[in-house]
């Protein structure tokens, strides 16, 4: 039986932000009287995560994903509710807790800009008090997994974004954390590097049972890395479960992609069903799950068809549809 490493109950974070004023007069007045409004970044979120799970946080910008992650990592104090990570209260920032977690922030750099990445690794060795043999072993293992042997002696400022992210990942895993928080780990990376990072994270999880929690804008990240997703919007949890379950719950349609022998008029096709893509000889229909076989049969009898492909709705489409308010 697996044990839960993260227990979040009614976690809430409200920020008090000054109301921005427009114009010189208003700016002058705001010097003396400032108005504030409360932003509910996270509102009573609860969930638990078990050891070795890989969980993705999905949601649009400002949904509260990163704020939740920061409360779990001990960067932010919750306004109310409780968070327990590995038996610790993160906001107390106990040394024992910090020794067991790590966080990679896609837009923040923990390496030293002017110096090679290895220097930052040596510093982390001191920070976490990693014994030399263990440090050497972990480092060479991580270097091999990410194939970064050639760039370790190059000053960080001369590395590409992808190379830098790989070096960041190594820095964050040197002390063998039990829980790894990743905030947009593949942001701005090229496709090859994204793939490499995803493979790497799966490998680390498989080998060391590290619990991984990530936020990402890239659905591919979540689909490739996570077994479970937590969907958040406006600070509240909308869905918590498997990706398959999410597709079953929200993806009530299937796609029929048809290659015709010769071009067919779009108008004619629109009369049969909802066309989402059209290229003359190829068209894609969106059709409800229960009707898709009937529609396929109808098309096959009416037209000469070269190929017919039935596809599941992509996670990305569901998210897009969901967050643009057309459930």
């Amino acid at each position, binding site marked *: 039986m697996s044990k839960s490493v993260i227990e979040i109950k009614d976690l809430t974070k409200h*920020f008090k932000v000054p109301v921005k004023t427009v114009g010189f007069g208003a700016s002058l007045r705001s010097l003396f009287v400032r108005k504030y409004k409360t932003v509910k970044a996270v509102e009573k979120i609860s969930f638990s995560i078990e050891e070795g799970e890989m969980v993705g946080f999905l949601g649009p910008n400002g949904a509260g994903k*990163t*704020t939740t992650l*920061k409360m779990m*990592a*001990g*960067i*932010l*104090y919750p306004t109310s509710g409780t968070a327990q990570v590995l038996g610790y209260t993160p906001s107390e*920032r106990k*040394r024992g807790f*910090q*020794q067991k*977690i*790590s*966080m990679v*922030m*896609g*837009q*923040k750099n*923990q390496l*030293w800009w*002017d*110096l090679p990445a290895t*220097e930052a690794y*040596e*510093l*982390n060795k*001191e*920070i*976490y008090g990693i014994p030399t043999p263990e440090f050497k072993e972990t480092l060479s293992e991580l270097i091999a997994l990410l194939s970064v042997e050639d760039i370790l002696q190059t*000053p960080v400022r001369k590395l590409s974004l992808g190379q830098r992210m790989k070096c960041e990942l190594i820095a964050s895993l040197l002390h063998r954390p039990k829980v790894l928080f990743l*905030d*947009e780990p593949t*942001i701005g990376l090229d496709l090859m590097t994204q793939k490499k990072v995803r493979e790497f994270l799966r490998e680390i999880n498989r080998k060391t049972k590290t619990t991984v929690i990530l936020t990402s804008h890239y659905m591919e990240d979540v689909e490739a890395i996570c077994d479970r997703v937590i969907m958040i919007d406006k600070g509240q949890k909308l869905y918590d479960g498997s990706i398959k379950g999410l597709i079953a719950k929200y993806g009530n349609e299937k796609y029929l992609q048809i290659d015709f022998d010769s071009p067919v008029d779009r108008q004619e096709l629109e009369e049969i069903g909802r066309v989402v893509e059209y290229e003359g000889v190829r068209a894609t229909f969106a059709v409800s799950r229960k009707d898709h076989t009937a529609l396929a049969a109808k098309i096959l009898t009416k037209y000469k068809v070269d190929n017919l492909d039935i596809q599941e709705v992509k996670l990305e489409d569901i998210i897009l549809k969901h967050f643009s308010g057309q459930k």
Partner: protein
Amino acid sequence: MKKYFKVFLLSLSTQFQYRSNLVMWLIVAFLEPVVMVMVWSSILGDRPEIGGYGRSDFVLYYLSTTVAWYFVGGVFSGRVGQAIKQGEINKSLIKPYSVVMEAMAGEQAWKVVSLALSLPVVALLWHLFGADYNLQMTWFLALALLVSIIFGASIFALIEALIGITAFWFVEVWPIGEVIGVLRNLFGGILAPLTLLPLYIQRIAVYLPFKYIFYTPVNLFMGRVENPLREIGIQGLYVGVLYIFYKYLWKQGLRRYEGIGG
């Protein structure tokens, strides 16, 4: 502490990446004491002394203030403020590691480089203008000086840390830093020896921590302190009070912290 020594070494390596900066530090090291000595020399004119300070006293005073600055002072409040403002402290909040200590150790790196560069300049100036000065150094005084420098550096660092963490409340910390900087120069005896300033400034200075940063160690070195133990005791008291205040503010600040940025 090993980790902060590593930060110090890393920052030192960074210093050597920018060689042109080294030349600038050399010029700064040279200019400051020379200008001050020239000003006081012209004020002295034909007089042998002003308020107990003759020409060689002034030379020694400003040279030792310059050297003390490299030992004691490291202006790092801006770094801390920036780190809080831009969310850079996030990375240290998740580690057993202090962003304030990092800033301090990092700042000390260029101080050491500057010290190394300024020592020949100081020696030259001393040889040219102050060599007739009769320094009395005993083991007791040397030990008192060492403790006083450590305490002075701690007071300086704690004030810098306090200025830095006001970034939890204010958007910019540099205006506060500037104000404190002016007060430090005036009441801390960097501008001129305190005994040469108007009596009311000397009276105010007694109630502020600034004179215990540079002025106390420099005067100890010059043999101008009547009761070294008393002065060191006050320094120690300031270190304690400022430390407690700093810990309190840090805790309050983190409660307000919004963890800006990714």
